[in-house]
């Protein structure tokens, strides 16, 4: 596997990072916060797209790995006074370890049963968050220290830049990966495991590596989220968040790295727009009603544009 210092994905990612880094100086705090959230979600979704889009698998429990990253980094920072930078590495490592162990259970299954198994494991992990008093139980973790750089403690702008720097790094890495023999083999697996096996590929091993990698992306995102919010509790990492990652992944385009970013941006931004506009028409609308539109968009996309928005865009470009 050879890694180019820059690939097309990486170059675009640098431009996007530069735009974000410039924009946060002009944007109101509210939009900077949204940008940070989109960055964090994008990171998770890029990892998920490798597993679902390229390897052709399905995970309905990705929020659990975000939670593991968040809790690990919080415990390291609060109880052991470890800097969040190392906390993020620790969070990614623990999420990877858990994913590795669980892969022996989950990855023996396919499609429907894999979906159910990842859903179940995600919920069991959430119950552990809730019941384990050492990590705060249902009341969660408070006063998680923020990232620092020398004497500078990260402010909301710095978090926006940090999260998008991670997105850029994540896109660059994944961009190299999908163009390598590893990525092409993943696509072969998604086209049919038997055929891939006949060519000497070990699907089990590749699926495991991809699953672990997706957990690393989620774990890093979780660690940044924990420090950014300075507060986490089990409900932040529920099944509903896992479903939201699936929404982002599918709406943006499963087999596309920028699709992950587009999907995360659409789910967050459309949610905000709908929350602002719909009550003007229907004053009684309350709660997360935007989910109705997101669910409907997901179904419409799967029926009309099975390759997602990003797939559609690249088709249009080629035409």
């Amino acid at each position, binding site marked *: 596997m050879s890694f180019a210092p820059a690939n097309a994905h990486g170059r675009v990612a640098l431009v996007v990072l530069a735009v974000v880094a410039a924009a946060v100086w002009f944007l109101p705090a509210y939009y900077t916060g949204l940008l940070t959230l989109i960055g964090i979600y994008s990171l998770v979704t890029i990892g998920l797209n490798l597993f679902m889009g390229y390897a052709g698998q399905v995970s309905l429990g990705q929020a659990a790995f975000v939670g593991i990253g968040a809790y690990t980094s919080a415990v390291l920072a609060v109880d052991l006074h470890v800097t969040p930078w190392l906390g993020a590495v620790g969070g990614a490592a623990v999420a990877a370890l858990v994913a590795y162990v669980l892969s022996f259970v989950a990855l023996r299954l396919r499609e429907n049963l894999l979906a*159910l198994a990842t859903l179940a494991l995600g*919920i069991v992990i959430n119950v552990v968050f809730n019941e384990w008093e050492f990590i705060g139980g249902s009341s969660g973790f408070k006063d998680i220290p923020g990232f620092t750089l020398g004497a500078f403690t990260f402010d909301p702008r710095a978090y926006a830049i940090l999260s998008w720097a991670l997105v850029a790094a994540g896109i660059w890495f994944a961009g190299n990966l999908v163009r390598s023999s590893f990525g092409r083999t993943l696509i072969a697996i998604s086209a049919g495991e038997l055929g891939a096996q006949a060519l000497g590929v070990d699907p089990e091993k590749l699926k495991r590596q991809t699953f672990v990698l997706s957990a690393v992306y989620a774990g890093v995102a979780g660690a940044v989220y924990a420090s950014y919010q300075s507060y986490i509790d089990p409900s932040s990492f529920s099944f509903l968040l896992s479903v939201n990652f699936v*929404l982002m992944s599918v709406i943006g385009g499963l087999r596309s790295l920028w699709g992950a970013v587009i999907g995360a941006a659409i789910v967050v931004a459309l949610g905000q727009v709908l929350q602002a506009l719909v009550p003007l028409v229907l004053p009684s*609308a*309350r709660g997360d009603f*935007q989910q109705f539109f*997101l669910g409907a968009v997901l179904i419409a996309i799967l029926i009309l544009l099975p390759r997602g928005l990003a797939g559609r865009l690249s088709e249009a470009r080629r035409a």
Partner: protein
Amino acid sequence: MIAQIWQYVLGGVVDGAIFALVAAGFVLIYQVTGIINFAQGEFVMVGGMTAASLAAAGMPPLGAAAIAVLVAACVGALSYLLAIRPARAATGVTLIFITLGLDVALRGLALFVWGTNPYSLPAFSGGNAVKLFGGALPPQAMWVLGTDLIVFAALYLFFARTYAGTAVRAAVANPPIASTFGIPLRTFAFASFVVAAAIGGLGGVVITPIPGVQYDAGLTYGLAGFVAAVLGGLDSLPGALLGGFVLGIVEHVAGGLLSPGWEQGVGFLILVLVLVLRPQGLLGRAVRRA
């Protein structure tokens, strides 16, 4: 101690009865179409919410219940026509995403119709708690158990004794050949959604007097229903009945003895174990690695 556990078991029987109904809906749809319908729990919510809000508006309980089941059936029909049928070229994973989207959309729709407030429904009959070997069941539990009895008996009679039921079994056993003999597969797929939704809606109507209902109640019912269906065997209706009761009882006893938070956790641990050790479930037939 024993008396305490017995009371947990009785509580588990009531939960188990509703889990069994949800699981029956899963099994019906899965058998006929091969789809795992992640939106199944929402049919229960729609039934419960419709009945509760109509009753709150002053409608007599029986009328509210009938309309609620009808509304749930219509939601099932529309779900099939708008989301499933247009995607008929789609394969496994895509269909999972579609029913997941349907689940999200229906829960969001419920927010528009009913808001976030919880609703309640009066019990269908008054009277004292039913005593059983020192434990107690609320009177409404009899309605829930009776509904199970009627629904599963009706399903059994339909599949075992009627011409249409035999045709559905033929369609499940070998779709291409059944199709050659003029069996309308697509109509059966449509019907499976309508019937599964009606069963879910009926379950929602009879269970709501006990825990109440709100817009996101379908998630819990749906998740428990999966576990019950997989536990019993995704291709077995008797399995759905057995899986529902086993799950309800195990969850309640574990929740009572450990802590309420573990109730759901134990259920999903069971699901993982079953998927790994016996993917065909307790009463399922063949191992389908799909």
